[in-house]
């Protein structure tokens, strides 16, 4: 019924993008934003109605074939509308709509206002293509398109050299991941002869253990590129060069979670290889704590959030790696709420302070921007894992699941716990530095609360952050039941049963969160000199964190510099003499031949007639002699 019109979810933002591309420039400033927001809100409405059958339990997911593209290899335009896709669609369109609305206020006055919303809508359409894809070809299409939109939006202010560089960096690093993704798809096609998810997952057990490990690891490489995991996370902090709504939408709530979605979607394959599971979870854990420590020492308000995103994505990888898919997707959802909220709040602060991003030049904003301060405070508590906010339930489910699996995963649980403490610490540090203490901003700044269009999304997201976690608690496993059809036949890891275990595990993690918040509050709710002394007390370690462990420099010297050198050699030692030489040589030959032939092109009709006759007569002689 409505499910047959589910393509509207993709078509509406796409139509918005096309419309804005051609006619956006004729609309006055807020209108393109309104059009874009309405397009994605419409998609949200359609998705919501189409989700109802899942909630009622009358439907368990189905494939909808839109158009036979390459049926021989199972690559059609088909939508796989199941609870997992529905949840992702609701998050993308719901959070997306709020961020679109926020951007109307944030981008006000920008010269390329309409172009910004063209890209945003295009991104939404691409992301929805990705999550609704019924086969790997279409998924890859969306996968690449969101990468393109990410590139366009990071480099939206391309006149700044750093923005252009960051966009390029994101694009190139993502290519590395895409290689893994492509090879994984090739292996799958070689084994199953189709790219259709139905065809592959239905007979996943045909994949041998070795190949399953290979596919799992290659998918991890692809996911690590898109979802900013070690070692490919370096592009995400740089991506903060883009406008803040972009950071909220693409680099926090939606696109970067595509990797988690990919792993969860490929659950039947991950299921087959313990090696892949352990690797994914370990990469996630390492990324979580690695990025969290870097986030500790960042001064840029958006950089803190960027590393925080990397860290939280690490949590999700831990979860899906440990086969706790529901927990991972749950955290994906709650993270979308509170991280989008944090980014939008940060955007509001940056907007209010005339594009100031250094936290040392903020402070004391609570009185000036109460709505932003309160909503960001809620998000900070949520990410720190304070009950009953969203982050608590999802993070706790991940940690509980890890603990339940035992063995190596117990170590990962400990890592997650430490990360939870660090997370609470740096998030509180940020909130205190921005909103409490003495004002340190420039004299000419007049911080003020943003217009209604900016504050309303903040409030809505804050409400979602507060209640969003209640969909999956030990009291009511609504999300669990909702997602069940999508993980049919796959063993999903759960936290240990029983109230006692829940209380103990939750207590430990809440303790970590509260400890982090308390420590940060004590350390930073003091005059500037005091907390600067606190930071310098860490000595060189703090500098290392602030410098993000110097990974960019290491990559620069070990990978980028040799790569540039190789490219230079290839360009000037190989391309110029050999390839260009061959092409030029060919041209030279043709020109020489033409010069030679010019003799016959005398321009004299009688010459031509003579040539014609000589040729005819020679042909006749040949006929007489040879025939």
């Amino acid at each position, binding site marked *: 019924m409505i499910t047959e019109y589910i393509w509207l979810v993709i078509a509406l933002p796409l139509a918005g993008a096309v419309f804005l591309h051609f006619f956006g420039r004729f609309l006055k400033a807020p209108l393109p934003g309104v059009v874009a927001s309405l397009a994605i809100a419409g998609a949200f409405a359609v998705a919501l109605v189409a989700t109802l059958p899942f909630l009622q339990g009358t439907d368990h997911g189905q494939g909808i074939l839109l158009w036979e593209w390459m049926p021989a290899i199972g690559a059609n335009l088909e939508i796989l509308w199941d609870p997992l896709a529905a949840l992702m669609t609701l998050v993308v369109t719901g959070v997306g709509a709020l961020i679109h609305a926020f951007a109307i206020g944030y981008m006000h006055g920008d010269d390329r206002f309409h172009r910004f919303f063209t890209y945003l809508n295009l991104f939404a359409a691409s992301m929805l293509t990705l999550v609704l894809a019924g086969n790997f070809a279409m998924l890859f299409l969306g996968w690449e398109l969101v990468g393109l939109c990410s590139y366009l939006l990071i480099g939206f202010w391309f006149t700044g050299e750093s923005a252009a560089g960051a966009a390029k960096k994101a694009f190139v690093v993502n290519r590395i991941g895409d290689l893994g993704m492509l090879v994984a798809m090739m292996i799958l096609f070689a084994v199953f002869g189709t790219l259709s998810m139905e065809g592959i997952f239905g007979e996943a057990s045909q994949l041998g253990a070795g190949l399953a490990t290979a596919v799992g690891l290659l998918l991890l490489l692809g996911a690590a590129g898109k979802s900013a995991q070690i070692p490919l996370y370096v592009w995400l902090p740089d991506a903060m060069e883009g406008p803040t709504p972009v950071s909220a939408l693409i680099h926090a709530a939606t696109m970067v979670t595509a990797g988690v979605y990919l792993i969860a979607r490929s659950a039947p394959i991950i299921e087959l290889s313990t090696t892949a599971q352990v690797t994914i979870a370990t990469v996630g854990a390492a990324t979580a704590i690695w990025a969290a420590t870097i986030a500790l020492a960042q001064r840029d308000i958006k950089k803190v959030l960027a590393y925080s995103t990397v860290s939280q994505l690490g949590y999700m990888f831990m979860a899906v790696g440990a086969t706790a898919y529901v927990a991972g997707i749950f955290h994906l959802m709650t993270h979308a709420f509170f991280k989008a909220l944090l980014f939008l709040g940060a955007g509001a602060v940056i907007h209010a302070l005339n594009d100031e991003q250094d936290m040392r030049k903020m402070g004391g904003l609570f009185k000036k921007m109460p709505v932003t301060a309160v909503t960001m405070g809620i998000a900070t508590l949520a990410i720190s894992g304070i009950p009953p906010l969203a982050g608590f339930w999802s993070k706790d489910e991940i940690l509980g699941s890890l603990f339940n699996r035992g063995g190596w995963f117990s170590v990962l649980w400990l890592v997650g716990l430490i990360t939870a403490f660090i997370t609470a610490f740096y998030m509180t540090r940020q909130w205190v530095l921005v909103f409490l203490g003495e004002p340190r901003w420039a004299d000419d700044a007049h911080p003020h609360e943003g217009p209604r269009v900016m504050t309303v999304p903040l409030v809505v997201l804050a409400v979602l952050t507060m209640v969003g976690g209640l969909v999956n608690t030990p009291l009511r496993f609504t999300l669990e039941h909702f997602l069940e059809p999508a993980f049919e036949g796959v063993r999903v890891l759960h936290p240990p049963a029983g109230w006692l275990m829940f209380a103990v595990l939750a207590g430990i993690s809440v303790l970590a969160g509260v400890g982090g918040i308390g420590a940060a509050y004590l350390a930073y709710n003091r005059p500037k000199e005091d907390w600067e002394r606190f930071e310098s007390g860490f000595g060189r370690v703090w500098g290392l964190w602030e410098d993000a462990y110097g990974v960019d420099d290491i990559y620069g010297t070990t990978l980028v510099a040799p790569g540039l050198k190789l490219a230079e050699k290839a360009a000037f030692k190989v391309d110029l003499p050999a390839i260009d030489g061959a092409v030029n040589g060919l041209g030279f030959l043709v020109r020489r031949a033409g010069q030679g032939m010019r003799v016959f092109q005398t321009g*004299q009709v*009688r*010459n031509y007639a*003579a040539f014609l006759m*000589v040729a005819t007569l*020679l042909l006749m*002689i040949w006929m*007489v*002699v040879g025939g």
Partner: protein
Amino acid sequence: MVEAVLFVLMGAGAIAGALTVVLARNPVYSAMGLLATLFSVAVLYVVHLAHAVAAVQVIVYAGAVMTLFLFVIMLIGVDKSEVRDEQLPHQRALILGVGLLIVVLAAAVTFSGSFVWVPAAVASPNPNLTNGTIQAIAEPLFTDWVLAFEATALLLTIAAAGAVALAHYRRRDT
């Protein structure tokens, strides 16, 4: 016997006319030479019983076409100042080559014996079959060759239109 006499006479007339076309300084003489050739050939057509074609030859060719030629000659003036000595490089060599090749070809086919003058010639031709009356020509023309006939009709239309278009040509500045 009559045919032999006619062949010699008319053959000589045709050759003479052709030579006049090529050698005459004055284009009007060339036109007259061509006219002589056309008449001679038309007589040879009659010898071959191609009455209809001979009539068309005289009426269309010797009549209309030659009138047109003369008209154009008069229109653009009788130009006797044509340079006779060759100025194009290689053209003399090319003419010599063409002439030589024709001679060689003729000699080759004559002496090699590999060429029968008319390969499928019958021993005793039946004049009734090739009596070129209007009816005799019209029948294959409108049955076997009707498509080609239509094509030539189209060609004539195009030619007429093309001639009109060319005549309409004006220089940009006038």
